[in-house]
C-alpha cells in the first residue's frame, strides 16, 4: 500500500505552474503539507464537485495543466462526473484519486471501493484516455511527467494505506483563494 502523503509529495515535486484543486477531506491536508501555493485551490464544501471544478478550469484554460487531487469518497459521491469528463475529453486534465477505502475524516467508515467499486475500471469505462493504478511509490516519479504533458483526461488511481498524518489545514477563505488563484494565473481583471 502506498503512503498517501509521500505519494502526493512525489507527484507534486517541481510542479511549476501546475494548477491543483483538492477535494473535501484528507487529500487537502496532503497537498497543503507540501506547502501552500497560490495555484492551489482547496474546496471546503459541496462534496463530490472537485472533478467538475477541474473540468470547468481545464476547459477555460487549455493553455495550462490542471490536476485534481481528491479522495475516493469525493469521487464516489459524483461518479457521473467521470462520464461527463470522459465526454468532454479535456487533454489537460488529470484526476488523482487517493483511495484509502475509508472516510478517514469522519471515523474510518468503509467506502464502496473497499468492497465493490474499482475506480480505475470506472474511469476507463467513462472514457479517460489514460488510467494508471500505481502500487509502488517509485511509480510516482514516472507518473509525475504525465501531469505536465500526458494526453488527458488522465486518471491516477492510487490505492493507499490508512496511515495517520498530521492534519495540515490551509486557508478556508474562498474569496481570498479565488483572487489569489486568478492573480497567479494571469486572469485577475
Amino acid at each position: 500500500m502506498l503512503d498517501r502523503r509521500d505519494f502526493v509529495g512525489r507527484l507534486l515535486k517541481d510542479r511549476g505552474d501546475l494548477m491543483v484543486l483538492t477535494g473535501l477531506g484528507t487529500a487537502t491536508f496532503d497537498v497543503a503539507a507540501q506547502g501552500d501555493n497560490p495555484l492551489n485551490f482547496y474546496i471546503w464544501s459541496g462534496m463530490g464537485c472537485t472533478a467538475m471544478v477541474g473540468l470547468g478550469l481545464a476547459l477555460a484554460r487549455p493553455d495550462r495543466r490542471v490536476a485534481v487531487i481528491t479522495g475516493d469518497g469525493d469521487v464516489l459521491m459524483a461518479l457521473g462526473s467521470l462520464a461527463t469528463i470522459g465526454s468532454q475529453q479535456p487533454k489537460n486534465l488529470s484526476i488523482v484519486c487517493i483511495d484509502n477505502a475509508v472516510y478517514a475524516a469522519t471515523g474510518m467508515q468503509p467506502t464502496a471501493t473497499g468492497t465493490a467499486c474499482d475506480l480505475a475500471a470506472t474511469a476507463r469505462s467513462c472514457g479517460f484516455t489514460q488510467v494508471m493504478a500505481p502500487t509502488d511509490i517509485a511509480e510516482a516519479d514516472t507518473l509525475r511527467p504525465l501531469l505536465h504533458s500526458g494526453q488527458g483526461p488522465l486518471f491516477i488511481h492510487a490505492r493507499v494505506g490508512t496511515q495517520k498524518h498530521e492534519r495540515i489545514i490551509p486557508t478556508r477563505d474562498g474569496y481570498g483563494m479565488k483572487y489569489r488563484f486568478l492573480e497567479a494565473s494571469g486572469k485577475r481583471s
Partner: protein
Amino acid sequence: MAHAQDQSSQANGSHADWPDRIHAVFKKFNVRQVGHVPDTGHTRLISLCAQDNEITDVVLTSEAEGPGLVLGATLGGERAALLMQSSGVGNCINTFSILQNCGAPIVLIVTMRGEFNDFNPWQRPMGKMTEETLKLCGFHVYRVDEEKDVEPVLVAACYMAFGGNFQVAVLLSQRMINRMPGAH
C-alpha cells in the same frame, strides 16, 4: 440539429424566439461555458449553444455537477451559465454552496415544471419549492411570465451576476413555455 429545433418549436406550440434572444444575451456578455441537463423547454437554446464555436456546451449527468463546472470556469477567467428544469434545482442544493463561498458568478436559467398544465403532476412538489430553495441557496431570483420580458430580465441577470459576482436565477414560467402534453 434542425430536426431537434423543429421538435422544440412544436413543443413550444409556436415558433417562439426567446431561446434565440437568450443566446444573443449570452454572446453579448461573453458567456463561454454552458452546462445543462436537458429539458424540452431548453431544447432550442441547448442546440444554439452546441452549434456556437465560442461556447463550450457541457452535457451533465446530474445538475449537481453544474456548480463545480461554474466555479472551475470562474477560476479560469471565463463566464458560465447553467440550464436545467426546476426538478434539477433540488439536486444542486449542496453544490450551490461552493459558488456562494467563493463569490463565483452564475446565471442559472430554469424552465419550470409542475406549475401549469404539466402532464406529470408529480413535478409539483419540486416546482413549488424551486423559487424558495434558490433564495435559501443565496440566489437572486427573477421570474419571467411573458416572452417580452425574457431579454431585459436576462440582461439584468447578467449585469448583476457578472458585475457583482452574484448567483442569479431566472425562472421561465411553464405557461410561457407552453409545454405540450407529454413533453418532459
